[in-house]
């Protein structure tokens, strides 16, 4: 399978469905497509082995109003919590789909073998989660995403889905308003291969890694699918909304979960003060996530952070809890601090700072995952149906990728027969080969992608991070433009074909740069504060002017901004207070 040559694939009968991405969204789509029509030719292309996708990092769980734990929980309540959580920017019809499909999808996962934790009455266990009125988060210990991903991967193997593991998607082949399929690189051989396809589903996950080491995300969450679709003429939506988590580890951005503060941990600045007293005198460290994130950021900005080569940070002090409590109740957190920061929280405070965690924006789709381009769909964190609006609730993202992954898979299976794409011209493959070689040419003046990547993360964190204001965002935009210019001088030193991670990282950086331009442009345009988007110069929500989605189209290398109304339903706009 590895050695399929380009020419052969070009003239091949198109795949019915090519799914880009093997996370929860992509695998659910693949499985559902095979279930809908077992005769289909379904391929999953993934730059890493699917079971390694970032879905595996989700610990908390997935929301569904099963009413196993709280007997009075209802789908209606889940809908309301989600809409309120989104700061009223979610589309209410989409949220209705999300929440009413939720119990079904969780049971379906159970029926196919997901190891959910159990309650005494043998039903699926549920626990409370932020922003939810009832305990409705279904979980498997602290490895929910991991076990869901394993189950889906296993089921896809059972169903005979074609896997192209370690293939890196580079471009969509487009003819007018239609897609002809996908072009990708076989990482193990370096060959550029065409995947003619009737339908393509993008499920490449989030783009929060553009904040680089200020992100809780895996190294490859670089928004490749969004960038490919965007450059191919498909609009993106609500990109300015990026969720920050208050306590990422200083060096890696990895999460220290809220449990640490729940057990009584203190947040302390360089002066030794428990600074939360200034921002939330009653709740202290246990204030809502966005408030605590903003407080940490303020401390750092006002010079009360500690300094290190890895950047400014604050301290999460657990020492007063004592060795016994730390060992018995926070063993995982202790392990993480030791593994990744080299600090044992029993003896030393843990260096932390806010970290970019989740991207609400993505490829603009309808409730079936369809984009404006014929035959192209998107699902998961990569897409934006808009169920999270300006802020997503914990436990709603796993749900999103499952529900809309399945819907997109079914839609593509049912609709693929309608499409009859023309062949991908060989010239497109050779053009990409040529472009990639270009990176390896010796250049008089050259740039290293590693440095650019760090600078991108830095300027985003500083200028388009938790607190935003016009002058800073403009600085961010300038930086992104200059980094984009410098990117054209990037030289890749590894000139080999086999497993060239050097080249891949350069391509990922280009994707992040293109998307960063949309995040910054949207942040500047949106003159209000809503959900995760906080403007110092426009501190309140402005429903009159800004109760609408931001839409971005790619025009000569730059984002052009447009808008789209929010679909309302039963719930009127209200102030969001907790």
């Amino acid at each position: 399978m590895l050695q399929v040559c380009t020419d052969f694939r070009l003239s091949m009968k198109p795949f019915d469905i090519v799914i880009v991405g093997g996370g929860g969204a992509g695998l659910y789509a693949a499985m559902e497509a095979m279930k809908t029509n077992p005769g289909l030719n379904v391929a999953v292309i993934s730059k890493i082995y699917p079971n390694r996708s970032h879905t595996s990092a989700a610990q908390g769980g997935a929301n569904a109003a099963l009413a196993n734990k709280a007997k009075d929980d209802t789908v209606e309540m889940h809908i309301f919590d989600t809409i309120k959580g989104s700061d009223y920017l979610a589309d209410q019809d989409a949220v209705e789909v999300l929440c009413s499909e939720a119990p079904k999808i969780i049971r379906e996962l159970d029926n196919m073998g997901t190891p959910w934790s159990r309650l005494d009455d043998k039903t699926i266990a549920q626990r409370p989660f932020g922003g939810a009125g009832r305990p409705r988060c279904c979980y498997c210990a602290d490895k929910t995403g991991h076990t869901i991903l394993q189950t889906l991967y296993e089921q896809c193997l059972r169903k005979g889905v074609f896997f192209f593991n370690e293939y890196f998607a580079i471009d969509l082949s487009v003819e007018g308003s239609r897609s002809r399929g996908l072009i990708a690189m076989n990482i193990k051989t370096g060959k550029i291969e065409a995947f003619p396809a009737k339908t393509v589903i993008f499920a490449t996950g989030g783009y929060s890694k553009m904040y680089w080491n200020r992100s809780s995300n895996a190294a490859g969450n670089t928004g490749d699918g969004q960038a490919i679709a965007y450059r191919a003429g498909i609009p993106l939506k609500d990109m300015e909304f990026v969720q920050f988590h208050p306590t990422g580890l200083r060096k890696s951005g990895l999460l220290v979960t809220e449990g640490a503060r729940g057990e009584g941990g203190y947040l302390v600045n360089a002066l030794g003060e428990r600074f939360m007293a200034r921002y939330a005198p009653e709740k202290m460290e246990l204030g809502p996530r966005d408030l605590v994130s903003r407080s940490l950021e303020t401390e750092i900005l006002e010079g009360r952070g500690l300094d290190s080569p890895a950047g400014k940070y604050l301290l999460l002090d657990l020492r007063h809890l004592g060795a016994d409590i730390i060992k018995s109740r926070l063993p995982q957190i202790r392990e993480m601090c030791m593994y990744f920061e080299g600090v044992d929280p029993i003896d030393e405070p843990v260096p932390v700072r806010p970290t970019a965690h989740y991207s609400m924006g993505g490829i603009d789709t309808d409730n079936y995952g369809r984009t404006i381009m014929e035959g192209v769909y998107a699902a998961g964190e990569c897409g934006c149906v808009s169920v999270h609006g300006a802020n997503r609730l914990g436990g709603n993202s796993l749900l999103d990728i499952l529900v809309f992954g399945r819907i997109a898979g079914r839609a593509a299976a049912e609709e693929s027969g309608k499409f009859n794409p023309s062949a991908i011209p060989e010239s497109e493959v050779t053009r990409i080969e040529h472009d990639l070689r270009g990176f390896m040419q010796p250049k008089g003046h050259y740039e290293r992608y590693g440095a650019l990547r760090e600078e991108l993360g830095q300027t985003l964190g500083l200028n388009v991070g938790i607190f935003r204001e016009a002058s800073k965002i403009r600085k961010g935009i300038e930086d992104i433009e200059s980094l984009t210019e410098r990117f054209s001088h990037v030289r890749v030193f590894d000139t080999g074909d086999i497993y060239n991670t050097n080249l891949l990282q350069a391509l990922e950086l280009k994707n992040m740069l293109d998307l960063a331009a949309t995040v910054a442009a949207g942040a500047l345009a949106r003159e209000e504060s809503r959900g995760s988007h906080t403007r110092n110069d426009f501190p309140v929500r402005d429903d009159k002017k800004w109760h609408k989605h931001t839409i971005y189209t790619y025009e000569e290398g730059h984002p052009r901004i447009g808008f789209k109304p929010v679909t309302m339903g039963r719930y009127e706009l209200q102030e969001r207070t907790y």
Partner: protein
Amino acid sequence: MSDTTIQHHVESRDVTFRVHRFNPQVDSKPYFDDYTIKLEKGITVLRALNYIKEHVDSTVTFRAFCQAGICGSCAMRINGISKLACTTQVWDELDRSRETGIIRIEPLRNLPLIKDLVVEMDPLVGKMKKHSNWVDSRMPEDEWGKKEFLISEKEFLTYDKATDCILCASCVSECTILRAHQEYVSPAVLLKSYRMNVDSRDGIHDQRLAGLVKDHGVWDCTHCYRCQETCVKHIPIMDAIHGIREDAIERRGTKDTSGARHAEAFMDDIAKKGKLVEATLPIRTNGIAWTVKNLLPMAFKMVLKRRTPPPPPLVKASKGIDALRKEFREMTGHVTKDHQKKSGE
């Protein structure tokens, strides 16, 4: 907490990474490159490798993704032991290293090499497929989503630990049998098979079991415990291997392999005579080490399970038997330990 300014003092030193290199496009055989960099205490091996790639030699090739010990990408041999680079502290490895200041980095074993530190994972996926490492649900697909299976927390606990596996292949790399036979099923695949077989939702238990008892299957394991000692998620893999063997004897009798037949002879001996006679041990055919490693732990577990009285002291102590007795005690110690671990979770 005092009100004086907090200083974070960090220790730093020069560390040499001796990295396995091989690019099949240009190299005729593998070699090692040394990279010496100044590092701060608290750095993981993966971060050090990232640093080398970004600042010293961008051609060094390895896999990494989550950087949080959950995706299983970054397994490699560090100072000779397979483990995750992203959860391994450089300072710990400096303590372990035999050569002062040098950390040796090599690719996993028992899987084909692609480049530098990257090995091919497809053989492992192939084995997962071969052994149906999925739940084949008893519920027809068109009924999915309508109602939950009712499952006790007790049942959940029988496979809870096994579902921690992140398919990093560290155990695969350390497996002694795999070194000799690439066709061997692999510890991770046995673990996964066991996890599926104890799941009450699954409907193909017997079929999966039939595959596991074939050549290069569960009876080939030598009980060397390397896999379990290596597992990056501390999963008691041996419990799974014992579990499959017990199950195989229980359901399929002793027809499958010489291993299973010997186990039965041994059990009979204990059960009927209450003692272990040298002549009835399957030592004749396979030698003493083989017998001890293959049969005793499993057989002993069967004793526990069926509440047969524990074996009395071995009769006729001889030189060989002394050694046997010692190993027997160690093995059975292992088994009880695994059991305690499991119930303590």
